[in-house]
């Protein structure tokens, strides 16, 4: 009922996917430095789920909404952005450009986590 309960929901959802994307970028950066390949099936699956018009999990809808708001503020189209990311992942084109695109979304989720956390603390 209070703000804390609802922000706990938002924090947990944002944190879960922040973890997923953060881990992927860390692994990718390390793999690039060691000239190794990495598995990206979880991340591909996540981005493909997001771009699915018939989203059936409210957690994914929340994340989609956060990303959509971010892209709209910058006059970018979420479907084009997600298609671009999925395409590069499926072709295993893990390069600086792809990692920058994902880093943007990490920042979106991190910002949401911090905001929700501060509201849980009663600071904001």
């Amino acid at each position: 009922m209070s703000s804390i309960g609802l922000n706990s929901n938002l924090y947990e959802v944002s944190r879960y996917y922040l973890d997923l994307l953060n881990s992927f970028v860390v692994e990718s950066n390390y793999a690039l430095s060691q000239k190794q390949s990495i598995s990206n099936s979880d991340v591909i699956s996540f981005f493909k789920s997001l771009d699915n018009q018939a989203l059936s999990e409210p957690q994914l809808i929340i994340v989609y909404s956060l990303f959509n708001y971010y892209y709209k503020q910058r006059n970018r189209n979420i479907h084009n952005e997600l298609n671009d990311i999925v395409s590069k992942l499926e072709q295993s084109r893990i390069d600086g450009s792809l990692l920058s695109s994902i880093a943007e979304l990490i920042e979106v989720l991190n910002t949401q986590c911090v905001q929700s956390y501060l509201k849980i603390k009663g600071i904001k």
Partner: protein
Amino acid sequence: MSNLVNHAIHEIRERAVSLKGQIPIQKLPTSFHRIAFDVTNELDKVIQKLDELLQSPKYQIDENIPYKVIRLQELFQTLDYIENNVIVCLDRWMEKDERMTCLVQKICREIVYPLVPPTATLISQDYYFIDIRFYHIRIPLLESNFLLHLPILYHEICHPIISTRNHPKIADFQHKLAEFYYQKEQLLARSIIDDTRNNNSKFQQILKIADHCWISWGIEFFCDLFAIYTSGPAFAWSYLFFCIKSGSQAFDLPTNKDSTHPSDDARLCAMMAGLRLIGLHSDAKQLETEWKAFLKKSFQSKDAKYKLIYPTELLEHCAVFCLEGVKNIGCNIYNPDSNQSITMLLNEAWCQFLNSSPSEYFSWEKQKIAILNLIDVK
């Protein structure tokens, strides 16, 4: 910078280890062992992840320092939360926490709640709320002495139904929320088109903000309606009186995308729609009469944009989708003729409160509270 980050990791790690020793397992009853176990596991995970940040070669390369910092912040937030919101509750455990936990278990059994019942602690400084990570409800200190706001428990136990992943017993409820979000998108998209055509895009900005806010508002509406469908009009009365006492703005509109709670009027209208859907028309009418009377005396009025942000059609869709969700997961729908003793008592409390003198009501309530505390959940 990397050295400073590593120092911070060491400091947090020391705190995590120390926190494990703070859990007072000897004084906790069996019903609190699960949360103590979960917290210990979570602290172990934090320590493991901190060790990874210190030792794994992945986190020592320059390119990954920013992501190491993000991970560190996340772990700090977890630790801070555990210390100040969970372990403090365990450290200050009292006998009445166990009695309140038993009441929550009883409520869950009555309504055929699909998940493990949460524990409860009377320690909240911010009304009722639920910690969905540790399945723990925090309640204001004196709530075990009164009946009228206990229906809020039914709202809180809905939050885990929305947030728990990969659980077959609640998937149908979550799908209904997703279907509602789809309806919301269609309806607000139409409103934006109409606004462009008829108003020269006068309300574009707020409609776009509202479109985003409805994602978190949807969660609150579904939790309100879950409470209505399982506890009946008692929840609506609890909320209406909370609005009257707390001075909240009935027709609040969002000013930015971070608005997490919908307006009080919209919430009550959705609750009334829910009551009508389960056949409680006279209760809905009585609530509407009281709410309108309060609004008339409170100098609050609706802005022209209000109906665009909270269209009646959308509130009614919400009530329908949520009811389908509650039925699909097998929860008992409130029935005034049922034998669910707690739910009946909470509704009877509001009936007594609204139709008796204050002294008669408080005397009645004291007797009922005394009985409630002795109820055996087995």
